[in-house]
């Protein structure tokens, strides 16, 4: 492998001002906000229908802030399943975040301890993906991270409230392709990492394993199993000189 597969050349630290960080953060998040509005409005409506009070809905969305696992919680809650198994299911659905925090935590040298604690609370899928991209160039700084995060968090809570209040009026988001923004956004970000070592092998193994798990064990295990298979591939393909670059 040539030198440009080396991690060093993938991480370009360029100084940015707080102003550009905030502007870039709020600009990069726009496609996500368009996707978040219908998703979280629907969640608000479903939560009220499932018997949560408005205050409980707010508490759920503000404190858990992980939509897939919130649906799982609602669903199991309605079935009268014991509490410990609901918490276990939430943990399983969110397991991918363990990998997110391990990976992005290495790029948070510019964050204080308190900023890290807050940042990890806000580490949803698009936040992780955009932060990894930002960390590669020009470097991840708190102003970028928190301006991106604040836009999603505020939009998420606000649309939850709208959905809870006007649930029955929500249109079908599939009409404009809005329901499909998130997979497309992630696809675009994945392609942006195509210079990382072992990209094609990791892509193929993760996709294949994810599909296999999806059709056998079922959701949400395809995320964890597909992800771990990809990591194992990257580890197996790794050679010592490629890795000595992180401090």
């Amino acid at each position, binding site marked *: 492998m040539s030198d440009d597969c080396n991690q060093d050349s993938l991480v370009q630290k360029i100084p940015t001002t707080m102003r550009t960080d905030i502007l870039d953060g709020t600009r990069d998040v726009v*496609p996500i906000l368009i996707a978040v509005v219908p998703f979280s409005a629907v969640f608000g409506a479903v939560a009220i229908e499932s018997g949560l009070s408005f205050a*409980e809905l707010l*508490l759920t969305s503000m404190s*858990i802030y992980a939509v897939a696992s919130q649906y799982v*919680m609602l669903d199991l*809650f309605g079935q009268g399943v014991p*509490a410990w198994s*609901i*918490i276990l299911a*939430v*943990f399983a659905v*969110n397991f*991918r*975040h*363990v*990998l*997110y*925090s*391990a*990976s992005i*935590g*290495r790029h948070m040298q510019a964050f204080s301890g308190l900023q890290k604690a807050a940042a990890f*609370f806000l*580490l949803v*899928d698009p936040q992780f993906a955009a932060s990894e991209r930002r960390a590669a160039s020009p470097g991840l700084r708190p102003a970028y991270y928190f301006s991106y995060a604040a836009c999603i968090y505020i939009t998420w809570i606000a649309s939850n409230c709208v959905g809870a209040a006007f649930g029955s009026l929500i249109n079908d988001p599939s009409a404009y*392709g809005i329901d*499909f923004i998130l*997979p*497309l956004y*992630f*696809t*675009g*970000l*994945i*392609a942006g*990492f*195509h210079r990382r070592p072992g*990209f094609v092998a*990791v892509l193929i*193994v993760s*996709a294949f394993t*994810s599909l296999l798990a*999806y059709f056998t064990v079922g*959701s949400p295990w395809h*995320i964890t199993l*597909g992800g771990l*298979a*990809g*990591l*194992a*591939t*990257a*580890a*197996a*393909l*790794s*050679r*010592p000189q*490629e*890795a000595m670059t992180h401090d």
Partner: protein
Amino acid sequence: MTDTVLLVCLCAAATYLTRTGGHLLLSRVGKVHHRAEAALNAVPVAVLTALVAPSIATDSIAEAAAIAVTGLLALRFSLVTSVAAGMASVVLLRILAI
């Protein structure tokens, strides 16, 4: 505190545990092996791919085609352009009912 509130708080704690856990574990290790380093560098590609993969196989051709359009365009063009093109193709192909 009602049972629901308690349950929600415990779910929130479980979620926060996953979001800090990886970093806390890793920062205790110090110097990691080059294979672990390579695995961590692959997290975005591996996990996001695993997240997206079912959309290729479980929806119609329209969704799979849109994924391909966005992925290929993003190799060259900006993220916003690629996602917009993918959305346009999914809407168009759904109208054509492919």
